[in-house]
């Protein structure tokens, strides 16, 4: 450390740290504090009410519905997305020719990655608008025009309380698969080729190579993917707010926690209560991350 470098370090950190502290750290800290108050968000006065907000939360039927819907997304989205992405990544990597150099990737590998990844770069409202029109509940909606021609009849999609949540789930999965495909693909290409060559010489087929070599070596990445997808499923605000009329869908069928936080905080004048929901969301995220990391813990394989 040379003379004067402390001053340099401080000058480089000052503005970014200040911004981060004011706009990121302090709102998070405040949320915990406000969750214990009856603050309306409008008047500057508020009382400290202890855990009252959390008690009210347990009796709030709409919030319970929202929580339940988030849990459905929490289970469905990561599971299906990872399964699809793994399948596609595997097909990309070993779906090609087999010869002395081992099994090869399919042709057009680059094109598939380019196409699959595409929804990831668009904003959620754009995707939500397109899908909400595709899933138009009239007979002439795009999805219905296909199912009718296939003789499957039409569905009401987002207008049906039974289907709406699954439609939102589908759009989420559809938008995420490409990202995780690219992620898994990058991880797969990181596995040294000689491991596969050795396995092939030993007589392992494609399936055996996948389950015995690829999958175990990918475990770390899958674990990370799971946590990220779980966080995504706990949010879901943007899709629901744009896609389903109401918003919150017919009979609150697509109600999610993000929407409840926004409604309570900005429309019903219950900022303290909304903050309590935020705190629940925070701990849920933390718990899920911890559980996922523990449940899937394996010995790390270095190569």
């Amino acid at each position: 450390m040379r003379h004067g470098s402390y001053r340099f370090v401080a000058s480089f950190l000052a503005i970014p740290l200040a911004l981060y502290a004011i706009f990121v750290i302090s709102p998070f800290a405040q949320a915990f504090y406000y969750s214990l108050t009856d603050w309306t968000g409008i008047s500057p006065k508020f009382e400290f009410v202890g855990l009252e907000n959390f008690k009210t939360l347990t009796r709030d039927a709409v919030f319970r519905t929202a929580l339940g819907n988030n849990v459905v997304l929490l289970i469905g989205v990561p599971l299906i997305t990872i399964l699809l992405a793994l399948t596609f990544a595997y097909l990309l990597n070993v779906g090609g020719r087999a010869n002395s150099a081992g099994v090869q990737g399919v042709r057009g590998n680059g094109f598939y990655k380019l196409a699959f990844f595409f929804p990831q770069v668009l904003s959620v409202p754009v995707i939500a608008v397109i899908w909400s029109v595709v899933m138009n509940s009239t007979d002439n909606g795009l999805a219905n025009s296909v199912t009718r021609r296939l003789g499957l009849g039409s569905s009401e999609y987002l207008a049906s309380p039974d289907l709406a949540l699954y439609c939102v789930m589908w759009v989420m999965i559809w938008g995420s698969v490409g990202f995780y495909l690219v992620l898994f693909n990058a991880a797969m290409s990181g596995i040294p080729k000689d491991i596969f060559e050795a396995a092939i010489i030993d007589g392992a087929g494609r399936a055996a190579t996948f389950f015995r070599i690829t999958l175990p070596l990918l475990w770390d990445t899958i674990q990370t993917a799971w946590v990220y997808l779980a966080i995504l499923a706990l949010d879901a605000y943007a899709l629901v707010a744009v896609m389903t009329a109401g918003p919150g869908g017919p009979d609150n069928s697509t109600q999610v926690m993000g929407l409840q936080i926004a409604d309570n905080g900005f429309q019903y004048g219950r900022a303290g209560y909304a903050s309590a929901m935020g705190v629940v969301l925070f701990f849920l995220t933390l718990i899920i991350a911890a559980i996922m990391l523990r449940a899937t813990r394996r010995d790390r394989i270095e190569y």
Partner: protein
Amino acid sequence: MTVQIDVKGPAEQADQGGGKGSGKPPRIQPAGGKDRVFSPVNVFSHTVLIAWSILVVVPFLWALIASVKSTGEIFGDNPWALPKELLWSNFSKAWDKGVGDYLFNSVVVVTGGVFGTMLFGSMVAYVLARYEFPGNRFIYYLFAAGMMFPTFLAIVPLFFVVKGFDMVSTYQGLILVYIAYSLPFTVFFMHAFFRTLPTSIAEAALVDGASHATTFFRVMLPMAKPGLISVGIFNVLGQFNQFVLPSFLSPEKPVLSQGIATLLGSQRYENDWGTLFAALTIAMVPVIVVYLIFYRQVQAGLTGATLK
């Protein structure tokens, strides 16, 4: 979705992988020999992959085409039909409905936001990666933790923080918030990048009498260009697509993604869907262009952090 495939031919070993491939060990062939292009596995792979590509691409193509259709054609008897005449007027109507303003707001905020994010993000990352001082690790983890926080926990208090500065629905308000929320990823990514750069060049510059700041701006930053490009594109797309933050912090000055959502709401009553799709196209085309030019960097930037 379950896809069954009938793997016929010499490989008849039962395969537990749900049709993922034949369990047959690959035939050893002489190097340079002709490859089997049409193996069942290959055909199956392409079928599945093409099917998903169609599922991804068709909705976008359909939306692009719908931008020059009339409402009657979009929801007509055959929603797949090509437009009889190209209704370019949809675009001017969309522009008049505010899409021009939304686009302008987005461009101003993203320009300021990305510039600030890149500057401050690399400054922090550089100092954290290259200098030892008390609290270094603490600050690093403080930023890293920011990637895991759910934005919704902070959104209500954040609104009042911004309101306290009298910056609701202003460019500077959104720009500062975008910078603050983009810092964690940028710092994380650039930190890893600065660590890989050789120390000898920076030391040589310092020995030659350059100040720490000069060394950073004239020597280290240019060397970090590949990393800056990756994370820069990531930030451009991320901030251009931002929806949750502006919806609450800038209700009076909507950015493009927010404006699109509002337009959908009003189309439900006005029934002018061609205009909505024209607005969507205006929102999509810049992103598509950036993506097609830089898709390697985009994918590298997005997956880079997760894989570390």
